[in-house]
């Protein structure tokens, strides 16, 4: 099972990003774990300065805004 981490200090776009991943995973019938990371030290530990960021299985794949739906679909299915 893939673990998605959504990096962000609780802004609206961060919550939207987590929702989008959950939605796309459900649509694709893939089980994923989604964790919201709000601790600044941990977020910065991934080298991210612009949130929301997305980490899949400890690898940073996205930073600096909402990912596009197509992008999220690719992550879930890959």
């Amino acid at each position, binding site marked *: 099972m893939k673990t998605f981490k959504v990096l*962000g*200090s609780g*802004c*609206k*776009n961060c919550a939207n990003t987590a929702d989008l991943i959950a939605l796309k995973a459900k649509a694709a019938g893939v089980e994923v774990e989604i964790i919201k990371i709000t601790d*600044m*030290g941990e*977020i*910065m*530990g*991934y*080298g*991210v*300065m*612009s*949130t929301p960021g997305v980490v899949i299985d400890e*690898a*940073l*794949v*996205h*930073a*600096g*805004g*909402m990912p*596009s739906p*197509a992008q999220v679909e690719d992550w879930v299915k890959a």
Partner: protein
Amino acid sequence: MFAIFTKLADWLAYDLFGLSPDTRLGEAVHFFIEDTTKIFFLLALIVFAIGFFRALLTPERVRKVVAGRPRYVSYPMAVGLGAVTPFCSCSSVPLFIGFLEARIPLGVTMAFLIASPMINEVAVVVLAATIGWKYAMLYVVAGLTVGIVGGLIIEALKLEKWVEDYVWKIKMGEAALQKANTSFKARIDYAMEQVKDIMGRIWIYVLVGIAIGALLHGFVPESFFLKYASADNPFAVPAAVLTGIPLYSNATGVVPIVEALLAKGVPLGTVLALMMSVAAISLPEMIILRKVLKPQLIATFTGILFVAFITVGYLFNALTV
């Protein structure tokens, strides 16, 4: 070039709605239609163009270029890049920590944070389209200068002690982001996403700004501003700056208000000081920055900007009289 929007507003307001250009309602509606169509058109166009060419820099990249430079390079760079780097105010905190972690001086970091909301390419183009390139450039130069001077003062006062202690302990990881896809289609998709994202974030500020501009334009008589906001009234500039401090709007949203005030004969310095103060400092921004700055530093920062904006206001009023 923008006459088409005036014509459209003429047609909608006067022909279709049957309003008279001599009435207050007619003037307000005309202003609203012209500015809404013009500003949203420009907004979409510029954001798309910048997204397409990827001229936009990410804060991560800015951090890399600014780090380790001598001050006479890093200050101008910080304000210049602050002006063109888009970032949402919700990212102010990680950005602040990331800069300090890269040993970028506090003053340079603050200069970036001052300039960034005050100046951006969209606001500058919209400002130029409504009140002319000369004034738009004056605004940019004044904004960059305020950023540099504000940063230098914070550095001279050695205010590092007023940064929250945990900030200095954070260690940043190395970001290993995938290479951006640069095919034509990917660029178009990316640019479209940017338009959606930025429009979705700021449309309400722009619309509210236009509505206030339209009301001022149509319903507040010129004599009101002549009485209270002329260059002869020494309190007009500080009052404008004070009004703007708690208010928050995207810089683009303030442009229609600037336009309406200038048309009513309010002096340039007073209007630009108001625009800077609305865009640069706001209560929500201070609440966000409180996570990394102690109250003393927030107060000092606000105080410095307050004085700087008033200075800009008086200076421009003196120059343009």
